[in-house]
Every structure is written in C-alpha cells, then in structure tokens.
C-alpha cells in the first residue's frame, strides 16, 4: 500500500539517498551528522531517507523534514532550532515521547546539518 501510494516519493528518496551516499555534495558536517543519526538509533522511531534501516514508525517520517515548518509540532524549524530540539526535546515540549539522547551540542548541530538537507 505504502509503496503503491508514493512511487514518486520513493524514487525521489532513492535519488536523494544515492546523492547523499555518493558524498559528492555532502558537507563534512552533514556526513558526520548522518553517521551520528545512524549511531544514535534515530531510525528505530523514524523513517529517515539516506540512513540504512531507518524505518521506525513511532514518530513521524523525517522525509523532507528540512522543509517542515515546525519540529515536534512545537519548535519553529531552523538549523539552530533543530539542533536545540535534538539536544533537549523535552525542554521544548515536556510531554513529547521523543527522548533526550544526551547529545553534545556539537553532535546535535551535526545531526541538524544532515537532517536540514532532507528536502
């Protein structure tokens, strides 16, 4: 059903993933962010283009999260806002199921650099 519903998106995702995996245009911060996203298991809860095995369904898909206006439905989306949200989601929204992962500021910034590129 999902496959049938969004062939265009899947193709776009594949192309995006291929481009990112190719590392041709990927800034070093984003590349580091991508491995951090993988290492911290974000894919256990989220579908994340470009991250192998990221097919979690607890939270929303992070497809095009760079274009999203709000993160967690609460935080206006910007690179800095996303880094803060990743570092301390429960600071922004105490009720959220998104856990604090104990990221350092630098780690959160690198992950935001990667995720912001998902458009």
């Amino acid at each position, binding site marked *: *059903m*999902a496959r049938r*519903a*969004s062939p*265009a*998106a899947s193709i776009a995702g594949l192309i995006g993933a291929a481009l990112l995996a190719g590392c041709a245009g990927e800034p070093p911060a984003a590349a580091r962010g991508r491995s951090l996203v993988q290492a911290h298991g974000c894919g256990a*809860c989220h*579908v994340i283009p470009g991250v192998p095995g990221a097919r979690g*369904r*607890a*939270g*929303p*898909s992070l*497809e*095009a999260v760079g*274009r*999203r*206006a*709000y993160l*967690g*439905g*609460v935080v206006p989306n910007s690179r800095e806002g996303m880094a803060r949200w990743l570092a301390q989601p429960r600071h*922004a*929204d105490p*009720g*959220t*199921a*998104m856990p604090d992962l104990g990221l350092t500021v630098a780690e959160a910034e690198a992950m935001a650099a990667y995720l912001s590129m998902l458009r």
Partner: protein
Amino acid sequence: MRPILLALLVALAAAGGGAAVVGFGVYDVSAINQHTGPVYWVLDIAMNRAVATRSTPVPEADEEASRRGLALFRDHCVQCHGAPGVAPQPFALGMTPVPSNLVATAREWDAARVHWVVERGLKMTGMPAWRYRFTAQQLRDVTAFVMRLPELTPMRYRELAAAAPAPAAPADPAQRPGDPQRGREAFRQYGCASCHRVMRISGARQHVGPPLDGLAQRRYLAGMLPNTEENLVRWIRFPQQVDPRSAMPDLGVGPQRARDIAAFLQTLE
C-alpha cells in the same frame, strides 16, 4: 495525409504556446485585473453550465425558513456579498471576482442553483462550501432568504437584520462509525491539507506539520498520544488541550466529522 499533418502541427503549436504561457509566468494571476475577456467568457460559461447541470430541485421554502435564513445571511454572507443598501467589507471588494450581488443572482437564478453553490462553493472564486459550516436545514434556510432578497427594500432589510436573533449553532452529534470516504472530504474542508502532505490528495503538499502518509502505522500521535482511534479523534478535535504548545490549532471539528477524518487517516498506510 497532409491535412492530418497540418492539424498535428497546429495542435503541437497550440500545446507549445500553452506550455510557454504557463512556464514563463505570462498569465496575470493577480486580483487587480480580471481574467482576459476570452478566459472570463469560457470560465463563466463553464461555471454556469456546471451549476445548472448539477443542481437538483429544492423543496419549496416557507416564510419561517427565510426568517431563519436571514440571521445566517447577516452573520455569514453580508461580509462578502453585501445586502440591499449594505456594502461588502473592504477586503471583499479586493477579491476577484468581487462576490456577486445576490439580489441580481436571485433575480436570475432558481433556488436549486443557489442552494447548490451555497452548499458546495465555487473553487478559485473565494466562495466557500458551507456544507461543513451549516446543517442541511440551514443551507435550505439561507437559500430561502437569498431568494427573497429582491423583494426587500433596503429599509426593510435593515429592520429585519437588526431584529433577527443570533442563529442557532449547528450541531454535529456523533451518530455512526467513521466513514473514510466522508473523512477524505472533511480533511480538505477543515484545512488539513494546508499543513500536511498526503500523497493521494491533490494539493496536500505542504510541510508545515508532518506528512500524514503512513499514519495508520504510527505508534504515537503528536509525539505523545498512543495511536488509537479515540486518541486520534481527541487530537483532531482538541489539539491545544492535548498539547498547549502545539502549532496545531483547534479547527472546530465536530465529533462525527472528527471520526470520519480519523477513519480516513487510518487508511493511510
């Protein structure tokens, strides 16, 4: 063969010209200027023919219906359409097309067509579909009043409008299980498509909130509620109660409509 070839070339040139007008942004879409003469002519015919063909007769309305309709008209229609002796609000005058003077409409159209447009609206004119704001009875009432407009002097309208009580709030009791088909229509009618992408709904391409494709498989709603039917209905109706920090607004969705929308969303796998 040659006439066929010629026809093909003409068709190609026309298609190319059309594509160029679209692609280079040639056409003036501003509300300052009306459509060009030929475009207006075609659209006007298309609108009139569609309404005439699709509308079905409505029952004869009594005096009481038109009296109830007056209060609805005063509270929901005058702002854009004006009334005898009453101008539309300034914002409405900036719309293109300027909302019709309904005295003229009522003189030229029958009640069936007026009812059809009130209920379903007209896309890209600014005329909303009132099906989700009024009850079936209210749709008939407001139609009945519009049809009486040409008989009213401006003075009489003013007196009646001043005296009419506030209209009763429409009720939407939950009476049946959610219906995905109706939910799909309600999804659009409550503005969900302005913020959420759903691949199978044309025009639902925004990323203000998360995409709702795959919602059926999501474990949490709004990042905090377990994804059950009851929670989904609650979240759709009272997002600000669930999470006061949320950007998702309370859209005034009634219980039955919320059930329908929830049923539709649960079909998104």
